């Protein structure tokens, strides 16, 4: 079997695997938000940036190749990842103390993991729309990080309920209905797309506090323990 080296550790890989896939299989955590093993890699959050033979690449999309010397868990890369996470925090409106997803949120968990103690950058205070029209699912665009997992999941379900539209900092999540409201789409509460959101942008109504704060996943575990099996949901 062929091998790559991640932070000095030899990691086997099969032909066609990405660096992320090889790392995950070997129990090596690479921070990420837009990646999910069940869906086509997206490569947009850039948290999984690693250094391969001196060049930065996204490990979720870059193929593993024999001879790659990869730096992953380094002070420098984690500092960059912290800054990228802070960018996501100031771009949207993420108020953890009042968010139902707190404790189960991967954005928050990555923030913990990277020892993020403040937002660092000035806040954008962007005005984002909340869509509470659907009887069972809430869409709060304030918390969207454009990972497109809901887009990918809904596409895989043959529904294409979600889409990311627009350009640059004005990008936003849209739903496919003439009114533009979630209630007029064919989204159902048991759809994968309603459960895949790593943050609190898409929430199933009526379930928010079934598990009390303090007893949630990342209240007790670092995301590096959980993420390898992708058992966030």
């Amino acid at each position, binding site marked *: 079997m062929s091998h790559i080296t991640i932070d000095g550790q030899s990691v086997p890989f099969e032909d066609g695997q990405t660096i992320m896939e090889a790392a995950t299989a070997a129990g090596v955590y690479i921070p990420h938000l837009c990646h999910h093993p069940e869906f086509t890699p997206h490569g*947009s959050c*850039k948290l999984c940036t690693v250094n391969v033979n001196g060049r930065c690449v996204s490990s979720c999309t870059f193929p593993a190749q024999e001879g790659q010397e990869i730096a992953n868990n380094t002070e420098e890369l984690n500092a960059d990842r912290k800054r*990228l996470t802070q*960018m996501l925090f100031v771009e949207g409106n993420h108020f953890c103390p009042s968010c139902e997803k707190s404790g189960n949120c991967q954005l928050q968990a990555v923030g913990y993991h990277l020892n993020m103690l403040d937002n660092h*950058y000035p806040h954008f205070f962007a005005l984002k729309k909340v869509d509470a029209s659907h009887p069972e699912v809430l869409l709060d665009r304030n918390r969207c990080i*454009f990972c497109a997992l809901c887009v990918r999941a809904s596409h895989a379900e043959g529904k*294409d309920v979600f*889409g990311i539209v627009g350009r640059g*900092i004005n990008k936003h999540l849209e739903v496919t209905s003439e009114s533009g409201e979630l209630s007029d789409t064919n989204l159902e509460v048991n759809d994968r797309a309603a459960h895949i959101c790593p943050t609190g942008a898409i929430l199933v109504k009526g379930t928010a506090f079934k598990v009390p704060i303090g007893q949630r996943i990342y209240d007790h575990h670092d995301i590096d323990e959980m993420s390898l099996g992708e058992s966030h949901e």
Partner: protein
Amino acid sequence: MESFIKQLTEKYQHQSTQLLMILREVQAQYFHIPKLAIALLVKELHIPKTQITGVIEFYSFLSTEPRGRYDIYISDSITDHMLGKHAIADYLCEKLKTPLGTIRADGLVSIANTSCTGLCDQGPAILVNGHAVGRLNKAHIDEIAALIEAQKPLAEWPTDLFAVADNIHKAGLLLNESVEKGAAIKATVQRGITETLAELKTSALRGRGGAGFTTAMKWQFCRETPETERYVVCNADEGEPGTFKDRVLLNSYADDLFEGMTVAAAIIGAKQGFVYLRGEYLHLYDKLQSVLALRRQANLLGENILSSGLNFDIEVRLGLGAYICGEESALIESLEGKMGVPRNRPPFPVTSGYLNKPTIVNNVETFVAAAHIALNGAEWFNQHGTEKSKGSKVLSISGDCARPGIYEYPFGTTIRQILADCGAEDVLGIQVGGPSGTFISNKEFDRKIAFEDLATGGSFIVFNNSRDIFAIVQNFTHFFAHESCGFCTPCRVGTSLMKNQYDKICTGHGSSGDVRELQEIAKLIKSTSHCGLGQTAAQPILTTLERYPELYNNKLKQISFEPGFDLDGSLAIARMLTGRDDSNAHLAQVEEE
């Protein structure tokens, strides 16, 4: 509207890949994309609504809200600024009683800024319903305003208003003489396909868009793919501010381009080619169509070209105002009728491009050079240039010089020589390769145009000592934030943060900590962005910080200690909440000396 949309989709054979061409016509008809049109297109093209709304919101020249019946975009490139854009824009807005960024109450006129329109040698420039008007002065504006108030259709406007000059001041290898029609194709067939590819390899031709990938290698990779359906794409989305050489090649050397594309098709085995023409070059569209028609008549395109057994045709598709579509994989997405978001690579377009089929994407100038090489051979070509950069480079020269326009030089020509030729004096610096390239100072005139020294896609903007470096870099930094596609975090958020941080320093609110912060953001965007746009967006800041640290230092507030806390910045929330931004809503960190 139903019948209009029906006819339109029939004209484009219900192909969703034609979405941009379709939406362009809807916008021209209704001055926006009405909701009903979107609903009808969802049905006719069988695509999700979000693909259509995504495209509308992505491209600058489409809108969901009605624009004026005369929709004016003012080119906001630094070169337009240097030619008096601000005063001209003020006069235009006043004359038409329409403030910049608004639509007049009667719906007749709308005026907005847009990125560089490629008339840098003849600015300031505007687009009126997509058609370029250069060399704008007050007399032109008076004339245009009268025509608009009289509601004269554009077709009845004096044609000299829309005249665009080539301004070729120095011709070289490619511009001296056009390839005789069909000669490069004949030479390719006679020499043999494999032999012509070998010739191209010997010529050492590298891509002229700026990146400089070896052309023969790209074509060979594509040719060797197991797929049999392959595509030839010409990148005519020349959006880099300060670049306009493709405009001239398309206007006066289109046959050479199509000849080069046909040679490429023979080599890689393609039946279909596309020219992706930037929307700002709408004025070239009809001309290109008629050149293509003539070539079809002469059997230089179509079935069994010149009895060689080769079948190939070319379609021109228009962009709609998005710089990012100059990135090859974003261009392919756009050709497929989608938002111009760059793809993940690998796979590269040579194996998975248009419709996921093997595709070569090359710059206009690269195809023109390839046509000449196919006809005249590698030796003719590579006796010009340097060891690592063979042949010539066509430059678009603008800014502070006596003779802006097109100059073709062998690679290895010094900056000093170029400045002398175009009549530039008292030079402060030059932006070589556009905002994504390098800003060089007046201590670097012995440097050379070459891949191994100053690589360039062709933009060459000269600044004299009266110019303010901060104003230049600010214009470029705003440009990148505006043009970021928004796909990846560092570019989407980072370019906006960088823009705000730069504005803070420009307006005299920066401290030394702010410059460090600026540098940190710049480096992060450069190293972690998804594509070339993000990776080069910080170039104007990084290259000027490196060359003019003293200028930046002088711009900073003279404060006696290093602040650990930004007092004024922390009031941003309070200002936002109260809607205030007056001087009393700002606090100085310490008493100023």
